[in-house]
């Protein structure tokens, strides 16, 4: 297990560093910077140069990167160019809604996917199973911004049950917090539920043909109980990996969802910072997101080892 952890951790550090370099280079390659955004159509060559000098943007890329990563390593992400906020404080404040949104979606998606995927697998030769699969396909195809607008129109504008936009902190008013997150979590979880459902379905169909399932049935178990008691556990193991891989997709989805619902999360901050070329914020935020995803992957690697003894034994033999 320790070997698994050390290997995964080393890989995580290398990936985080590589990712930070990629983001840094991409940001400077797309064209424009914070000076062009601030000055807008009133920019002159002189005023642009002056502002770039003020922000240290006229230094070489290497100097800029070293200066930023040096700050990161000492725990100081710095201040936005605009001076409107301290980056670490802003990220910390925005983690709450994003974590509620992403993990809320994950927590809802997984149980639904397990039940629906299992049902679909057990009925995969019947129309019921096929129709569940068809619905999952539709769930995959609907764009999040469109789904968000439709849900808002029905549940906020027409029925008036839920707020159309905004976020209330769980520490301020838990009931309002829940109400404000129903539509965003539903929007974000639909696509991911469809992914998980199809995954569980395929995995369960494979498990149903395994020898141990036949043994279970021979011992007197019904197809349903064999599937639930024996099949589902085995089918759920790869779901752990898929779940970890989907964290990235969830955070990417949160960019869209947070923007439509005006939720002050890190997704919205990432989008507005990228548009306004707040490079340090984008770099820092990307690094934080990268570390979250990589940590989840590390956690899942370890969990995978715990759930599947074959992995542990394979590592031990090395």
């Amino acid at each position: 297990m320790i070997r698994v952890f050390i290997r995964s951790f080393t890989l995580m550090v290398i990936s985080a560093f590589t990712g930070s370099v990629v983001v840094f280079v991409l940001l400077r390659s797309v064209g424009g910077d914070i000076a062009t955004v601030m000055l807008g159509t009133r920019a002159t060559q002189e005023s642009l140069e002056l502002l770039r000098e003020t922000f240290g943007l006229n230094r070489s890329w290497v100097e800029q990167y070293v200066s930023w990563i040096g700050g990161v390593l000492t725990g100081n992400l710095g201040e936005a160019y605009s001076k409107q906020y301290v980056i670490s404080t802003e990220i910390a404040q925005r983690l709450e809604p994003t974590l509620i949104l992403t993990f809320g979606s994950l927590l809802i998606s997984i149980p639904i996917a397990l039940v629906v995927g299992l049902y679909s697998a057990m009925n995969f030769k019947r129309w019921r199973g096929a129709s569940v699969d068809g619905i999952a396909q539709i769930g995959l195809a609907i764009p999040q911004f469109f789904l968000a607008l439709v849900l808002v129109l029905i549940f906020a504008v027409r029925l008036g049950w839920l707020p159309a936009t905004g976020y209330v902190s769980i520490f301020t008013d838990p009931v309002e917090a829940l109400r404000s997150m129903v539509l965003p979590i539903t929007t974000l979880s639909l696509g991911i539920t469809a992914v998980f459902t199809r995954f569980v379905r395929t995995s369960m169909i494979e498990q149903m043909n395994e020898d141990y399932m036949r043994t279970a049935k021979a011992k007197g178990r019904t197809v349903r109980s064999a599937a639930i008691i024996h099949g589902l556990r085995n089918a759920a193991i790869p779901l752990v990996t898929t779940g970890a891989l989907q964290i990235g997709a969830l955070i990417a989805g949160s960019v869209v969802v947070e923007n439509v619902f005006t939720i002050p999360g890190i997704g919205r901050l990432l989008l507005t910072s990228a548009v306004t070329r707040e490079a340090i914020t984008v770099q820092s935020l990307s690094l934080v997101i990268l570390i979250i995803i990589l940590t989840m992957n590390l956690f899942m690697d370890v969990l995978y080892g715990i759930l599947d003894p074959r992995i542990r034994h394979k590592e031990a033999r090395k």
Partner: protein
Amino acid sequence: MKKSLKLPVLIAVALSTALLSSSLAVAAPKPGEVGSTTLRASHPQKPTSWNYLQDGTSAFFVPTYLNILESLFETDSKGALKPLLATKLAVSKDGLTYTIDLRKATFHDGSEFTSADVVYSLEKNKTATNGLLSSPLAVTKSIKASGPSKVIVKLSRPSNSFREALGQPATMIAPSGYFESDNVGKKLIGTGPFSFGAFRQDIDLHLNRNAKYWGTKPFFKKVIHQFRDDEPATISALKTGQLDVVGMLFGAGVDQVKPFITDKKYQTFFWPSTSASYLFLNPKTTALKDIKVRKAIAHAINRKPIIDAAVGGYAEPGCLMVPTWTSPWNSNYCPYKFDVAKSKALLKDAGFADGLELDFPYLTLAEFPASFEVLSAQLAAVGITVKGRGQDIATWIAKVWATPTPEYDINHITNNAPLSTFGCKGTTTPYGYEALCDEKFESLIASSDSIVDPKKYVAAMKETANYVADQAWVIEIFSKNEPGIANAKLTGIAKARTSMEMDYRNIKWAK
């Protein structure tokens, strides 16, 4: 009364009194209800900075100008100067000396407003990287206090731009030492009817009523100015009662304004734009150096379909580079009206009978993607093929606007740069960066700004505007009427704007 009965009776009386008083007490109106002292407004743009010496974007001025920060004068709907922090203006006959009397006022930090603050602020604004502030103040030779409530400004030459800027953000006043303090970029301090309150990055800014305001205090104790760039979501928030005022829609929300015009629960308003929306052509593109080609492009433009597609029909077509609302030199002059046959003939004359291909990188925001679609179809109809590619604002400014080596042939922008900022020494593309130095135009803009006689000035500006239209390096398409929607029970929404502001000063609930 028996002693044992006293306590239960006392409790019963206390409880009934509490119940009675609570039933009689009137609950304070919630936001959105008539009488509420909180106004919730939204605008699609978010300021990139709170330092106005650096930030030249309109998003900065929307919530702050006139609400938090005040200038010496403001400009009324007819373009005249109206007292604000200044009470009186006297200009010498030669147009070189401006004597400005100031009122008594207090800054949000409690300090007194004096002439020293005006001298400090104007000197700071004059050296700002933001050209909106520094350009009109460039002609000032000296700015001196004459006692605590008078300032004398001397100019190196008479300047109409300077006079007009007195009622614009160029003369916004901050307390002395503000730009050297820790507040700069984080908190604005002005003299306006609202002070700078809580700010949540890309979410909202709270404006708190200034109890010490020198003028009529606003009705609303708090204005929550929200930054919402998803316009359909903003409209939904308005419909569900989460917003009271939605200002200046310019994207996908424009198409959703129509139903609100007839809905009695709402009022719609259309702010006459302070800017012009126009095509501009690259002087470095060989084919465009021939005026016949430029005329052909101008003749190919049918303004009405562009207005309908790009801004929901809420605009006035125009051919002069002049916003339609205040400029006295505006007119119906239109040298190259829509005429496909004439356009084709001009192209043939210029040697492009087989067609012409032009590069058209367009902005991927507001009206520009939709206008690009219609423009490319109209130009194709006369034989001009445009190669379109979307660019976000930062890329566009870096590659098209603020560069001596721009990468475009034809482009579209909506801008409130006055004609005086055109000219090859200026910064407004396509003239700026010495790209287009037309002798006649240079002499027109150089001389018109110095004309002291108002009538002669208007005549000179008219000649300049017409000359710009004739040359067709810039081809105006329209002047927008920016739509907004508000709760029908609100009154006092400004009918016009001085600059780019959303003016919250006079908004209140109707009786």
